């Protein structure tokens, strides 16, 4: 069983606040799922590279693109806290 501390550490990394009840439930659920994952350890897969890029690069030019003003406005409208055309963020420290 995964410890309470371990669940709390992962939750903090994931930026998730969990209630004490959720932590207990998560201990059980995560442990069961991770046990299920352990079946993979017996597979000999070392010779298979882990890259998932079959088709090579497909990148656009790194240049600014014009977006119409309406879209920019709509995007900004969704921000919960802003000043003029800027999205406000709480101070980090």
């Amino acid at each position, binding site marked *: 069983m995964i410890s309470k501390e371990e*669940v709390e550490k*992962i*939750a903090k*990394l*994931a*930026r*998730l*606040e*969990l*209630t004490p009840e*959720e932590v207990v*439930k*998560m201990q059980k*659920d*995560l442990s*069961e*799922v*991770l046990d*299920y*994952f352990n*079946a*993979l*350890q017996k*597979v000999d*897969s*070392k010779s*298979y*590279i*882990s*890259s*998932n890029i079959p*088709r090579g690069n*497909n*990148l*656009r030019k790194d240049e600014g693109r014009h977006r119409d003003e309406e*879209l920019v406005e*709509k*995007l900004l409208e*969704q*921000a*919960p*806290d802003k000043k003029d055309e800027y*999205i406000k*963020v*709480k*101070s*980090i420290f």
Partner: protein
Amino acid sequence: MELPGLTISKIHDSLVKKEYSALELTKKYLEQIAERDVAISAFLSASPESAISQAKETDKLIFAGKKIPMLAGVPCAIKDNILVKGLKCTAGSKILESYEAPYDATVVKKLKKEGAVLLGKTNLDEFGMGASTENSGFKMTRNPEDLDRVPGGSSGGSAAAIKASECCFALGSDTGGSIRQPASFCGVVGLKPTYGAVSRYGLISFASSLDQVGVLASTVADAKMIFDVISGKDSMDSTSIELPKLSNPNFSIKNLRIGVPKEYFVKGLDKEVEKTVRSAIKKMEAEGAKIEEISLPNTEYALATYYIIAPSEASANLARYDGIKYGLSEKEDKLLDVYLKSRGKGFGAEVKRRIMIGTYCLSSGYYDAYYKKAQQIRNLLREDFKKAFGKVDMIFTPVAPTTAFKIGEKTADPLSMYLSDIYTVSVSLAGLPAISVPCGRANNLPVGLQIIGKHFEEHKILQTASFIEKLVI
């Protein structure tokens, strides 16, 4: 007009012959939603005003004697994780409860260009994470075949809406089976295209190496028409590509080599479901197709592999819901608390579970054992299919191990819910196209047959599915 049994071509013919107008048809579907959806809950929101104005556009064209595209005036529904400009897009999550889409997804743009009428947005498991639509942050959709049962998921709203004649066709998305499994549970057709065949621009991301927009419809012919409209390269999605032309577009069933993987007919598969699927395969054999038992030896590892890769990608993708840019935001003094509280309050239990699994698998010390291992096995699974497709043209399997299960049956045990995806996740991990086509009934509920094709051979599996559709009636 009677809504059940309507198809795209029937609607098109009737519109052109002026048997009814697009406006009348749209109003009839909106009435059907108002009546039926009280019991079914397939829709999260309807958009009658925009639907009516879209219908009027088609009527204007018909009135002016202009030729109209096949989808013009045809009422459809869009899964609520696909953006439609000006409409709410929640992905079934409280964290996006008030989010309004600022632009159209590419697939939506293409449907609109063809003149399709968008009736509204359909329910789903939050961010596509689930196999029953019970994980929606808003409501639970019921299976029109049996109201005590789930419609499957995560595109359960789309599948149920078609079955209840609340729309003619619908868009869905499929990450590990989210189109195919609800199609099977509700008795409709569901196509998950090859990874890259359809643009994902404007689809709310779950697991980007697996997500694919696809089609739910009541007939294979309809599914094909919609697929032809929405597929193709899009500059806004670098993983999308133009479909290569098939070297042999016309083939006969007699020459078809169909593989049946022995690993898919094992313990856990409902006996009645197995009987129904096997009987469909027998019918194909009677028509002259060559049935061959094949092996996909790494199948037993597919589900664990999927449930490492998909949550890992999700944990990164869902980091964007931070209470800063859009979506739910809790007022706190410190930045870290804004993150913790907004996400803690906005995400539902299953989404939290997947974020936790993904974060764990990607965290220092566990990455090699879980994520890297899963990526390697993903390649083994791809190799399995590649070898099999050296011998056969197509692979037939069940879509899900059971028929639609009872509401609440699997909610307490996440792992039992995950097992519902056991026959669909390998296909997603290999990026292959697959269709779920109704092939009969078991336990008095619909059963889907899964037809898996080679990459970009959608038209072949569609043609075969169309053949089966006629065979099993």
